[in-house]
């Protein structure tokens, strides 16, 4: 088990090291930052003076060395646009994105699992078909279309919900739904299929035969075995959610990390962009590790195979 975990952690660390290196060089390829620190078309001599002040005129290897040194000492640099520590900026933005993620993840999981189970149990019935139809529509609708449609209906026409910002929980409702929907649809589909798969197995017949009540049969024997693919899909979807939140935050003017990264990219704010990418890499790697761990918890065979 420890060996299994060790290999996974090592793989994760290696991934992050590669990301840290790649992001540094990739950001430098996007164009000179000083051009974006001054209004468009500013005098090149002023641009040069600014570049010298921020050490952007030094060779790329010197800059890379400084960047690595900073990472090791926990200094993630100063934003070129805002001239304040990158950490301070993320500290302001991260709570909004986390709130959004928690809402979306909660919504997708707590609604998706029961709906998937019901869809499996009522496979040929009207309820099951209805759930699957809605899930497919949810899966097939691009999230920006859904976002703008929701804004038009609930804000523009009905005036029920605020369209933009992140000041109250209500502000998070529409973005969370938009963010959650593709994930919800995925969870419903995978839960249903996994349940159907498991429900045909012999051990369920055995469980029923030994007189277990139906909720035990479904809840314990079927669901636990169906959980592996479902956990996998939740893990994958968290990574997808990071990508989607960029768009969702832009449309709903949620002042979160996605919005920040978009603006840092447009403004060539290297330090902010770098930290954002590293943060996302760490998040995705951590979620993958947790999923790997959960496999072992859910499915004892993983533990056996690993040792």
């Amino acid at each position, binding site marked *: 088990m420890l060996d299994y975990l060790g290999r996974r952690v090592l793989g994760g660390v290696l991934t992050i090291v590669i990301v840290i290196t790649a992001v540094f060089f990739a950001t430098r390829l996007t164009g000179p930052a000083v051009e974006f620190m001054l209004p468009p*078309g500013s005098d090149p001599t*002023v641009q040069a003076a600014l570049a010298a*002040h921020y050490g952007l005129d030094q060779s790329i290897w010197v800059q890379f060395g400084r960047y690595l040194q900073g990472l090791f000492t926990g200094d993630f640099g100063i934003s070129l646009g805002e001239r*304040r520590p990158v950490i301070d900026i993320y500290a302001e933005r991260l709570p909004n994105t986390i709130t959004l993620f928690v809402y979306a993840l909660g919504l997708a999981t707590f609604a998706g699992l029961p709906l998937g189970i019901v869809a499996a149990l009522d496979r040929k019935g009207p309820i099951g078909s209805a759930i699957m139809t809605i899930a497919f529509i949810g899966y097939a609708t691009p999230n920006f279309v859904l976002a703008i449609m929701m804004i038009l209906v609930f*804000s523009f026409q009905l005036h029920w919900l605020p369209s933009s910002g992140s000041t109250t929980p209500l502000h998070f409702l529409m973005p969370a739904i938009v963010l959650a929907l593709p994930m919800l649809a995925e969870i419903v589909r995978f839960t249903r299929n996994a349940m159907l798969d498991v429900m045909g197995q012999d051990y369920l017949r055995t469980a029923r035969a030994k007189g277990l009540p139906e909720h035990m049969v479904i809840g314990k024997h079927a669901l636990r075995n169906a959980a592996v693919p479902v956990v996998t899909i939740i893990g994958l979807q968290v990574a997808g959610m990071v990508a989607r939140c960029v768009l969702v935050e832009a449309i709903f003017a949620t002042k979160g990390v996605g919005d920040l990264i978009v603006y840092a990219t447009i403004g060539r704010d290297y330090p902010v962009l770098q930290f954002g990418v590293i943060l996302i890499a760490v998040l995705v790697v951590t979620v993958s590790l947790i999923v790997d761990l959960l496999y072992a918890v859910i499915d004892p065979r993983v533990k056996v195979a690993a040792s």
Partner: protein
Amino acid sequence: MTNRILLALGAVLLGTTALAAAELTVATQNMSSFVDPGRDHSNVGSQNYVNAFDPLIEKDYSQAGAVFSPGLATEWEQTSPTTMEVTLREGVLFHDGTEMTAEDVVFSFHRIIDELTPEYKSIKTQFFTNFEKVEALDTYRVRFTTINPEPLFETLLNAQQGYIVPKAYIMGLTGDAETAEIADFEAFALAPVGTGPYRITRFQPGENLVYERFADYYGDEAPLERFEMRRISEMATRLTALANGEVDIITNVPPDQLATIENNPNLKVEGAVTPLFHVVIYNAMHPKLEDKRIRQALSLAIDRDLLNQALWLGEAVVPSTHTYPQYGELYMPELETFTYNPERARELLAEAGYDGTPIRFDTDAVYYTNGLLAAQAIKEMWAAVGVEMDLNVTNSWGEPSALESRNWSNPMYFADPAGSYGTMWAPGGARIGNTWQPNEAYVEMWERFRYSTDVETRKAAYAEIMEYVADEMPVLPLYQPYESYGLRQSVEWKPLPGHIPYVLDFRAGSIALAD
């Protein structure tokens, strides 16, 4: 869900009561990452300063012409062509409670004149190149000394870049409290303090700015208790936030969205032609465009009136020369610098032996309203005279020497040709030596225009400069855009003609809220 709806309704109702308490929210397309009037000349920055800072000399902004009035200075006198003595208002408090004195005035100007940061160097070039020194004569008297005679003392002391900032507060922000370090200015730009009718109580760079009434303001009390500027970049979201009552004013409404606002009984549109040109610039130092006949032809091929009709519904202003009504006596619409003549364009191209090489034209996809659409239309206009445009959509200016042509904006930073044409094209301006190298006669013309204290001499010199520009063609002003704002019906506000572009003036007399 019913609870949520009730909550939402509650929120909307709360929003309405908030308005009754003289509060306001503005949704802007962009938001600055710093707030320092002396470091900034960007369009987005112009939104931030007028409510929280004061100039030495004030101006009547309700009209385009220059009618000056006392600001932080109560009296001023030009004691010689190169000196001006200013008497300060006594008892003016900064938002941190300290009194404004001559020390602060000297510091405010010298941080720019002495180029204490690279950005101040840029501001000096465009505004205060002629300023040699600023000295305190006593606690409330200051003397300005210039290198050449200065006809624009009042205009420059009214400019945003000349707003007064607190010396002791800034120097005390980081490190040694007795010296002004770069870090002090960077800290100030995140926690700005001025003398204006509103103080800035919250600033999240790139996100929002909150202003509250400053009780100790020396002048007329601010009409709003509190207002907030929030960035909502998406036009559709900004418009919805306005229709939904979440915000009271929205900025940067493109012409094709005006009908949506006008058709909503709760909303209205206010707008004005701004003292700013969208321009096309040519790199006269690029081998493809070295021959001035090519540059002349490219400009003659552009039907600017058609662009105005098609993109601005005829609301923009197509100039005959580089001039604005805001220049007062220097407003010279009679000059005929830029014209449309496709036949002449074809002749010039033939004379210059243009061989059909495509000419690159750079444009950002979104930065200028209608910028990309105008570029696409210009591509067709160039094609009509036989020039192929290689339209390059990018948000970078790229390698400076590789630039061929592109769109740009040329705002009025202060109300004089030197404050608009001059900021870009005066000797030493942002593009000189980079995309255009004028001759020595031009430098002489410029000095005569810039430093003469006689209005007629200045006008004659500017006419000569424009004649030279028509021949050299480093730049073509396309039009002055019509900038529109969307407002709730309850808000009485409109952009004032005396301001530089994009200023959101919420001072006494400039805004009122109905019940």
